[in-house]
């Protein structure tokens, strides 16, 4: 079979693309494959992120009408810190900053499930220094909720004790940050 690009050399790369059920076949030679570069998987220009974006973009409607009907809900999702939109994230397969994880929170579980065989919650190492703070933060949050509950029940004596406990926790957190 001759290369469909140059019609001179033998085609050595056979590549079938199926997008939304539409099948395209490409038969080209080494030389043209290198020139076409980006469009052929396995060539240098093809990255894991492009592969991934297929995975991330599963909310994409099958047909892509050029709608002018205002901004969709998806477009509205924009990270306040780095301005990354969910659309862009889905397209390039990379987060812009740590805050993107919070901004796109509602969309991430299905994506992580696909990539990490069903896992969505970290089960490994916790950094030593920041990890301790996290632990304290968590405890303070929990105590504050308990405090609200006590106040609601008008158990003021216990509430006062708890308030002091929270203060001392907050103090040790502040000391840690300064130290």
């Amino acid at each position, binding site marked *: 079979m001759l290369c469909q690009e140059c019609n001179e050399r033998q085609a050595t790369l056979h590549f079938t693309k199926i997008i939304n059920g539409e099948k395209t076949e490409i038969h080209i030679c080494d030389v043209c494959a290198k020139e076409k570069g980006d469009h052929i998987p*396995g060539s240098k220009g093809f990255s*894991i*992120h492009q592969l*991934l974006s297929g995975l*991330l973009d599963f909310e994409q409607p099958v047909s892509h009408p050029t709608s002018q009907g205002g901004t969709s809900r998806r477009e509205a999702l924009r990270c306040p*810190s*780095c301005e*990354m939109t969910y659309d862009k994230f889905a397209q390039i*397969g*990379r*987060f*812009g*900053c*740590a805050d993107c*994880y919070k901004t796109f929170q509602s969309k*991430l579980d299905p*994506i*992580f499930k696909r*990539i*990490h*065989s*069903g*896992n*969505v*919650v*970290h*089960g*490994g*190492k*916790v*950094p*030593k*220094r*920041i*990890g301790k703070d*996290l632990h304290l933060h*968590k405890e303070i949050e929990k105590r504050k909720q308990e405090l609200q509950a006590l106040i609601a029940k008008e158990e003021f004596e216990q509430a006062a004790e708890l308030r002091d406990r929270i203060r001392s926790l907050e103090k040790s957190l502040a000391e840690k940050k300064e130290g």
Partner: protein
Amino acid sequence: MSLQQFISQAISPWMKKEGPNSDIVLSSRVRLARNIQDVPFPMLASTESLVSLSDRVKSEYSGHSHHRFGTIELLNTGDMKQNEKRVLVEKHLISPALSDESRAGAVLLSEDESLSVMINEEDHIRIQCLLSGFQLSEALKLANEVDDWLEDKLDFAFDEKRGYLTSCPTNVGTGLRASVMMHLPALVITRQMNRILPAVNQLGLVVRGIYGEGSEAQGNLFQISNQITLGKTEEDIVQDLQSVVLQLIQQERAARKALLEQSRVQMEDRVYRSYGILAYSRTMESKEATKRLSDVRLGIDMGIIKDVSANILNELMILTQPGFLQQYAGEVLSPEQRDQRRATLIRDRLRLETKKDN
């Protein structure tokens, strides 16, 4: 520069140590991806903030001594010549992306080159520990120590639920990629790889040919690594990989034994033919070189060839890459010139072995 001198400079000290099961597992690698709190990931960060990060790492860590790795030095990719960077890529100490695409890219290197920390690659920090042979747990332990050492002074982006936050969702959680480079010629010759690969993939591991594309692994070298980084502990990830690697080692050994018992003459023929070609060729493409070197290494491991040292495959696989050939030649080479230099280098290297015996 003499060939011996060149080799001693070109081959990382960690490679010279013979690790466990090094007849099949050439090297073990653990990589941890980390990012700095409140700085956008390198793709979106301002060049200013990336420069300030690499400067900060330099002032806090470069020239300092780590109790395991000795003195650590920081190199800025911006200060390096193209070929110097290429050589680091061929030694697997930095990635092609850090070499060519990063802004304010830098690498912290230990003296024995078993530790490299890339700065401002896809993530702000990528810790990598490389050891010879099958030493994944050891590599993880070392990488963890370096992680703690860096975390002492740098605030890493970490989320209680998602773990270490990374630029790519495939790395989130542990940020851990553990991998081994395996030489599996007997499984390829006996056509068992086609059966094994899908099974390994099903276990959440990825198998890739090295120095080759797709399923065609040049030199019968395969890289096996974990795919999942979220939801499991670092130790579990490494253990799962280890158990599969151990099975592959056993299968490869069994296949080698069977080949020797059932087709000794054919194996000897294959090995000696390749040896002859390596010893006498005047021009050789890298693809053929890796193939022949794989045969000779198999011959050494099977006891067919006795007077050549086993690390010749690892050594020449790196030395015959374009960057090294050009560094040795001291000039830029055309592909044809490289093929000639490659053939010469291999002949000279093999001659070193025979000289050693006399």
